[in-house]
C-alpha cells in the first residue's frame, strides 16, 4: 500500500487539482443531466396532455352520437402525428371503453379507474388521463394515453457521452494546469534540495539559493541562505584561528628545533643523547603538523603560492624516493616500470610534498617489511604517477571522503596517529596543477594512490 505521504508534493498537488476538477465537473453534470431529464419529462407531459385534449374535443360528437368507429378513427389518425403513443383509449362517462387503439406489435394496456385528470410515470411510459369536457363543463368521458418515453434513453446516452468527453477534457486540462502550476512550488523546493546537496558535497558554504517572490518557499530559501552565511562565517573564523595559532606555534618551535639540532651534534653521555634524539623526533613531528596546518590555512584563504618551473618527472620521483627512504626504515620503496623522460611545468617543492605524503601514507598503513611501488604511465596528454602498497586498503565508500579536511578512515582512527590533512593538501596542490588525484583500493588488499598531471607543451629529454 502506498500512503499519501509517499507521494511527492508535486504529485499531491496534481492529484488534488484533478480530484477537485472531477468533483466539481461531476456535480455539475449530475445537475445538468437531472434538469435535462426533468425538462424532457415536463415537456412530454405538457404535449401529451394537450394531445389528449385535442383527441377529446375531436371525439365529443362521436361520444354524443355513440359513434365508436369515428372515435377509433380519430385515435388512429392522431397517433400518426404523435408516434410515441403505445395505447390510447376513450372511456365514456360511465367508465366503459368507447374506443381503443394499440400500436401494432405492442401489448394492449387496460386503463384503470379513477378516470380523472392525472398523469404519472412508470419505468418506460408516461400515462395521461384527460377528461373530455364540453363548453358547458359537462364531462363526456376520458382520454387515456400510454406514451413511450422514446427520447429519454437517447437524451441520457447523449448527456453521458458529453459528460464523459468533457470530464476527460476537464481532467486533462486540470492535469496540465496543475502540472504547470506545481513547478512554482515543487521546482523551487527541488532546487533548494539540489543546492543543499552541492553544498554538502563540495563544502562550499558560500553558495546561495536564488530567492524569487515572497511565498513560503522564498522565505525558506532566504532563511537557508542566512543559515549558510552563518556556517560560512564560523568556518572562516575557525580557519583564521588555525592560521593564527599555527603561525604563533611555529616560531618558538623553530628555535626549539634549532637548539635541539645543535645539542644533538655535541658530545653527551649515551642516555642523554638518546633523550635528545627522542625530543628531536617529537619536535619534528610537531613541526610537520604545524606546517600542514599552515598549508591548510593558506589553502583556505587562497594564499597558497605556486612557483611553476619546468621539471623532470624522473628526477622528481628519484629524489622523493631517496628522501622518503631515509625516514621510512621498515619498508622498501621501489621504482617500477620504465622511466618516462617527461618534463612538466609545476611547483617542484609542492609536487614533492604530494609524493612524500603518498609514500608516507603507504608506509603508515601497511605492515612492516612490505614494499612500496612507484610507477609512471604516460599518455598523449598527461602523465600518471601511482604509489602502490600492500597494506590495509580502504573501503569503497570512503574513497571520496579521505581527500576531505580532517577526515580519517574509520579503521585507522585509533591505531595509527594522524590529523587527516595529508591527502587534503595533496588534492589541493594537484588541483592547482590542473591535475587529478584518486585512489584504487579494496579493504585488506592494499591501495594505489595516483595523480595525473597534464603535459602541455611537453618536450622529451634527449
Amino acid at each position: 500500500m502506498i500512503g499519501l505521504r509517499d507521494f511527492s508534493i508535486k504529485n499531491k498537488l496534481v492529484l488534488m487539482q484533478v480530484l477537485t476538477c472531477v468533483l466539481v465537473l461531476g456535480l455539475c453534470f449530475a445537475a445538468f443531466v437531472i434538469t435535462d431529464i426533468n425538462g424532457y419529462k415536463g415537456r412530454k407531459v405538457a404535449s401529451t396532455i394537450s394531445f389528449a385534449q385535442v383527441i377529446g374535443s375531436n371525439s365529443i360528437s362521436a361520444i354524443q352520437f355513440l359513434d365508436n368507429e369515428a372515435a377509433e378513427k380519430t385515435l388512429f389518425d392522431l397517433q400518426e402525428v404523435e408516434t410515441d403513443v403505445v395505447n390510447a383509449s376513450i372511456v365514456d362517462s360511465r367508465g366503459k371503453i368507447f374506443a381503443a387503439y394499440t400500436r401494432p406489435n405492442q401489448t394492449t394496456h387496460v386503463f384503470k379507474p379513477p378516470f380523472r385528470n392525472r398523469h404519472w410515470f412508470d419505468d418506460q411510459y408516461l400515462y395521461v388521463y384527460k377528461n373530455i369536457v364540453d363548453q358547458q363543463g359537462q364531462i363526456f368521458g376520458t382520454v387515456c394515453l400510454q406514451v413511450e418515453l422514446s427520447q429519454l434513453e437517447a437524451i441520457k446516452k447523449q448527456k453521458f457521452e458529453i459528460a464523459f468527453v468533457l470530464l476527460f477534457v476537464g481532467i486533462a486540462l486540470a492535469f496540465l494546469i496543475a502540472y504547470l502550476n506545481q513547478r512554482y512550488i515543487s521546482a523551487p523546493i527541488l532546487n533548494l534540495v539540489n543546492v543543499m546537496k552541492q553544498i554538502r558535497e563540495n563544502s562550499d558554504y558560500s553558495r546561495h539559493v536564488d530567492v524569487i517572490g515572497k511565498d513560503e518557499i522564498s522565505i525558506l530559501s532566504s532563511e537557508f541562505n542566512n543559515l549558510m552565511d552563518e556556517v560560512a562565517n564560523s568556518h572562516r573564523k575557525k580557519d583564521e584561528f588555525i592560521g593564527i595559532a599555527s603561525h604563533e606555534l611555529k616560531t618558538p618551535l623553530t628555535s626549539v628545533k634549532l637548539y635541539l639540532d645543535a645539542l644533538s651534534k655535541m658530545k653527551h653521555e649515551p642516555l642523554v643523547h638518546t633523550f635528545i634524539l627522542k625530543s628531536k623526533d617529537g619536535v619534528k613531528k610537531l613541526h610537520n603538523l604545524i606546517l600542514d596546518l599552515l598549508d591548510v590555512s593558506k589553502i583556505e584563504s587562497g594564499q597558497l603560492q605556486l612557483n611553476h618551473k619546468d621539471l623532470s618527472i624522473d628526477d622528481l620521483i628519484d629524489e622523493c624516493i631517496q628522501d622518503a627512504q631515509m625516514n621510512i626504515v621498515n619498508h622498501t620503496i621501489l621504482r617500477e616500470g620504465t622511466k618516462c623522460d617527461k618534463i612538466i611545468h609545476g611547483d617542484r617543492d609542492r609536487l614533492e610534498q604530494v609524493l612524500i605524503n603518498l609514500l608516507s601514507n603507504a608506509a603508515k598503513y601497511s605492515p612492516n617489511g612490505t614494499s612500496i611501488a612507484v610507477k609512471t604511465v604516460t599518455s598523449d596528454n598527461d602523465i600518471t604517477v601511482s604509489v602502490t602498497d600492500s597494506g590495509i586498503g580502504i573501503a569503497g565508500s570512503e574513497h571520496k571522503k579521505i581527500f576531505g579536511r580532517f577526515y580519517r578512515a574509520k579503521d585507522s582512527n585509533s591505531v595509527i596517529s594522524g590529523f587527516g590533512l595529508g591527502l587534503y593538501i595533496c588534492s589541493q596542490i594537484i588541483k592547482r596543477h590542473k591535475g587529478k588525484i584518486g585512489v584504487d583500493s579494496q579493504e585488506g588488499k592494499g591501495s594505489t594512490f595516483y595523480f595525473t598531471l597534464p603535459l602541455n607543451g611537453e618536450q622529451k629529454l634527449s
Partner: protein
Amino acid sequence: MRIKQFIFIFLTSILVLSNYAFQVRQPQGQEYNLKAAFLYRFLDYVEWNNNSSWNNTTEDPLRIAILGESGLYGPLMEISRDKKAGTRTIRVRQINSVSEIGSSQVIFVSRNYKYGIDAVLNRMLDKPALIISEQKGDVEKGSHINFLIADNKLKFEVNLKTAARSGIKIGSQLLQHATLIKK
C-alpha cells in the same frame, strides 16, 4: 257490412297486437331516450341562418313539435325541463296535424303519424324548420335528418340538399357521424 266491420276490427286488432309485440321486442323506452338525447344534441350542430328571429341567440324559446303519438315526448320533455339549447329554453309540444306546426323550429315526424313525411314536406316547403323523421326512405323523400337502427345501434342519415333549401346548415361535426349524406 257486419262482416266488413268484423274484418276491420280483426285486422286492426292484429295490427295493434303486432305493433304491441314489436314494441315489446324492441326496447322502445331505450330507443326513444337515445333519440331524445340525439335530437337534443343535434341542436348544437344546426344553424338556422336565413331569418334572425330563428337564431339560436335570441331569448325566445326554441320550439319542438312532435307530430303524431311518440315515445319521444316523455324523454324530450325531461330534457327540456333542465337543459337549454344555447341560451334558449326548449319547449316541446305534441301535435296531431301539420296545421298545428306554427312557428316550430324543429319538427319530429313520428312513425305513428299516418300521413307520413310527404304531408309535412308539402306543408313546410322551404320553411326554416328542421324536419326529423324515423322511417326508412324518408331522407330520400326530403326529410332533413332520419333516424334508423342498424347493427342494433341508433344511427341517422342527413339530406343536406333539402336542409339547405330550408335555410338550415348542418355542422360537419354532425355530418361525420351520419351513415348517409344526400347532397
